[in-house]
């Protein structure tokens, strides 16, 4: 075997035709060292965990712990790409383990498109420190300086002596070392996985029915629960007759949940649970409940009158949050003034998997839950407060999520399962029906936006007033909240990029009557709809090409700081120096998307192109839509083009897929999405009354370009959504000369 002395591990495996395995690797090393070497690496420790995200086993497998929730955005593929790359680990020797909720992992709230943009450095560090620890172990064993060793191909190499040892072999030696807390990152040129379109890690499970979602977990002796809730949010039970429900075959118990408290936060919202030996029996029992409700303080909420209230509020004096120049004087001095109101309704996230969770009490009085949650630590908190136990006594397992879109950040449904598990003393699975999901969710706000521009003789905007009015997310946490505030204003209002000398941005009050939550891209949805639509209006008023006008309005490339105009702006939690509002980057995506779409080309009759650009979650997306309007007035979206500047990206194919999905999600918002209320209750209930885009409406193609960039990563899951709806209404104007300022288009008979 002497000819094996100086061959690499990979070469050894190739020559011997062996698959990787602990024994083979040990033999390789022992032989290579020979009797004069430092001796074999011992196999004592089974594994070593350099940090909470990595565990290297002595069989060579690198376990990577995914502490973020997978809901289709691809984090279970992208997260190990980063760690494995920094470790120089072999992709085929990775095992991905989904983390439970635990503060030791840091932030696990998979929300706000944060996984990569907030944790790229953390994940790189996890991989890099693991790599350095294995290098240190090898170097110590060989008696050589660590800086002379490198990690490559799942092994550590000392080039001068041509020694090498696989990661698995180094586990025991590494287990005797202190793990470093920081380590240098690889250079960009050396990336193996970052920037590559690795296949979806769960691809096989997702196509064979083996993937386990929140609705799929099964425990022995489990009860299935279906819960009837008050039609109006915050209402209570006047009387309950459950005799017929209890007579349904398979029904085991009927339990009243505690009345809701204010503010709702993430708590249970009351109701009556029917528990049965299977889902169907629970649903049938629930149908048989006779409940008289007191609809409570929100029982009079009605969308048409609420719309009037929003319109009145948004056209009254507002609360300024950004002031540049003097808009009032500029309006006086303007050659002409143009104003408009944009209106967009409540929306429901309606993920394909409705909220579902299973919980059981543990012998020591704690609780263990399995759920499709975007935020397992919030689930721990909510279950703990619901049961009156310590957070440490609540264990939350994160399943795959059948879509999230913000709904599954709120663990109310997990609290319901936990409460019922304690009441029954048995494991309980709570599955929301689609009607439950659409009627009792945390809704994306209905919104009215007032915009007013003063124009000079050439039609150029010299002043801009925008007033934003919607019931606030804050109301879910603070019953005193009276309207928009805090971070909501940072989502497409205060970060206005346009080079207009006089600007005033304001809020207008709106009281909440439903639980207000967030939906993919949050307030950016209605802010972008209004701003991008109004900018397009100004282009036509000025007789200018919308794309050229957009570039002109952005002005010369520059970086904007809303603080210069007295605004408080948090920039998605990042300093502007690192993630600037850079109008040059806006212009670049506009130019790119226009080139892709053939902007300016001659279109068939009744066709139109519309363009929109919006920055959100630290990324900028420009979108062009081509649609046509048939003789009956119905819209067909033919193609969508999107250019995204998300800084550094990890997996281009997952970025592209997020843009494709955002195009469809944005189309659903533009064409169909609307939640309305009557007598405090949501009217819609399923995909018939709350339609979403189907295959027959999907564009022929969605073209995506990712701007090459070495800037720090921005978000990807959400930023594709905001520009889509305005690009559609702008394209509709181009095709028809009719301006639409209210969503969804379905209401105007256009779908």
């Amino acid at each position, binding site marked *: 075997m002497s000819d094996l002395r100086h061959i690499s591990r990979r070469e050894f495996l190739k020559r011997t035709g062996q698959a990787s395995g602990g024994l083979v690797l040990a033999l390789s090393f022992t032989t290579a060292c020979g009797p004069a070497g430092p001796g074999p690496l011992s196999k004592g420790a089974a594994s070593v965990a350099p940090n909470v995200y990595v565990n290297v086993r002595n069989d060579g497998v690198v376990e990577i712990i995914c502490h973020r929730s997978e809901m*289709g955005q691809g984090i279970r593929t992208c997260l190990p790409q980063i760690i494995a790359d920094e470790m120089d680990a072999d992709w085929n020797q990775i095992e991905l383990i989904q983390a439970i909720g635990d503060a030791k992992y840091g932030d696990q709230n998979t929300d706000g498109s944060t996984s990569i943009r907030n944790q790229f450095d953390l994940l790189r560090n996890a991989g890099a420190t693991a790599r350095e620890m294995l290098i240190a172990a090898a170097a110590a064993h060989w008696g050589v300086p660590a800086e002379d060793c490198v990690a490559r191909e799942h092994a550590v190499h000392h080039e001068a002596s041509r020694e090498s040892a696989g990661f698995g072999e180094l586990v025991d030696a590494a287990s005797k070392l202190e793990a470093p807390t920081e380590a240098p990152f690889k250079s960009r040129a050396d990336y193996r996985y970052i920037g590559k379109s690795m296949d979806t890690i769960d691809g096989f499970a*997702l196509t064979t*029915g083996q993937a386990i979602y929140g609705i799929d977990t099964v425990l022995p002796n489990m009860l299935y629960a279906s819960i009837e809730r008050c039609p109006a949010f915050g209402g209570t039970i006047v009387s309950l007759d459950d005799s017929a429900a209890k007579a349904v075959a398979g029904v085991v118990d009927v339990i009243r949940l505690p009345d809701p408290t204010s503010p709702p936060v993430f708590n249970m919202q009351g109701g009556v649970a029917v528990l049965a030996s299977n889902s169907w029996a629970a649903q049938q029992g629930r149908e048989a409940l006779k409940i008289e409700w007191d609809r409570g303080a929100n029982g009079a909420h009605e969308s048409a009158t609420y719309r009037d209230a929003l319109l009145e509020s948004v056209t009254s004096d507002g609360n300024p949050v950004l002031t540049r120049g003097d808009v009032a004087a500029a309006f006086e001095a303007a050659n002409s003034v143009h104003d408009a109101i944009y209106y967009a309704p409540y929306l429901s996230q309606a993920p394909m998997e409705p909220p579902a969770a299973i919980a059981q009490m543990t012998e020591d009085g704690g609780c263990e839950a399995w759920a499709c949650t975007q935020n397992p630590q919030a689930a721990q908190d909510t279950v703990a407060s619901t049961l009156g136990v310590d957070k440490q006594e609540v264990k939350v397992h994160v399943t795959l999520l059948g879509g999230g879109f913000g709904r599954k950040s709120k663990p109310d449904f997990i609290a319901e399962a936990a409460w019922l598990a304690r009441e029954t003393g048995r494991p309980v699975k709570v599955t929301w029906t689609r009607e439950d999901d659409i009627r009792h969710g945390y809704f994306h706000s209905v919104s009215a936006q007032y915009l007013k521009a003063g124009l000079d003789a050439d039609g150029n905007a010299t002043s801009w007033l925008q007033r934003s009015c919607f019931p606030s997310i804050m109301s879910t946490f603070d019953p005193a909240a009276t309207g928009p505030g805090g971070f909501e204003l940072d989502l497409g209002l205060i970060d206005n990029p346009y080079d207009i000398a006089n600007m005033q941005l304001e809020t207008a009050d709106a009281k909440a009557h439903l639980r207000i939550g967030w939906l993919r891209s949050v307030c950016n949805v209605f802010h972008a709809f209004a701003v991008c639509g109004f900018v397009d209006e100004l282009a036509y008023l000025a007789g200018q090409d919308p794309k050229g006008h957009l570039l002109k309005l952005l002005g010369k490339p520059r970086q904007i700081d809303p603080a210069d105009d007295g605004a408080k702006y948090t920039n998605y939690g990042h300093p502007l120096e690192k993630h600037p509002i850079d109008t040059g980057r806006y212009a670049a995506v506009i130019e790119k998307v226009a080139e892709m779409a053939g902007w300016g080309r001659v279109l068939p009759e009744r066709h139109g192109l519309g363009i929109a650009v919006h920055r959100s979650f630290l990324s900028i997306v420009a979108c062009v839509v081509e649609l046509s309007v048939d003789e009956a007035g119905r819209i067909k979206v033919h193609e969508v083009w999107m250019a995204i500047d998300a800084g550094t990206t990890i997996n281009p194919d997952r970025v592209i897929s997020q843009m494709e999905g*955002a195009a469809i999600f944005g189309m659903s918002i533009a064409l169909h999405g609307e939640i309305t209320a009557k007598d405090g209750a949501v009217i819609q209930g399923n995909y018939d009354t709350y339609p979403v885009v189907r295959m027959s409406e999907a564009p022929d193609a969605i073209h995506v370009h990712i701007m090459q960039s070495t800037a720090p990563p921005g978000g990807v899951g959400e930023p594709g959504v905001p520009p889509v709806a305005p690009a559609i209404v702008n394209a509709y104007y181009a095709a028809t000369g009719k301006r639409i300022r209210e969503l969804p288009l379905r209401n105007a008979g256009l779908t």
Partner: protein
Amino acid sequence: MAIELTLNGESLSLDVEPDMPLLWAIRDLAGLTGTKFGCGKALCGACNVHMDGQVVRSCVLPVSAAAGRKVTTIEGLAKEGNHPVQVAWRELNVAQCGYCQSGQIMSAVALLERNPNPSNDDIDAAMSGNICRCGTYTRIREAIHRAAEGPS
């Protein structure tokens, strides 16, 4: 009452209320969770399975209607999970969250069995009963074409 049917090639006797939708019998009683609940009203297709080779919406089909029939779920589509449609789905990384994809795949397989070379219009017609909230439609179209072409 006892309902007897063939599920993924195996005989099964279920002691069940006859009006229970096939979906819940498959999921809660037979223990196969690859078939999904999405709407309960035959609107979204997440629950699609094959019964005697035809696509049915298991969330509204009473289990009694499956008595004596052959039911195939996503788990029974191909032994190694390598039906050409499944392979094409993986090659193109169609799935995002994946929740609707069992139903999408069952619809696509049935489409290709009756129309081995569908046009985009054929696909749109056959697949419009299946909602994907992640918006994977353009990739689904492409994957169906790829599966129709056979192994490259």
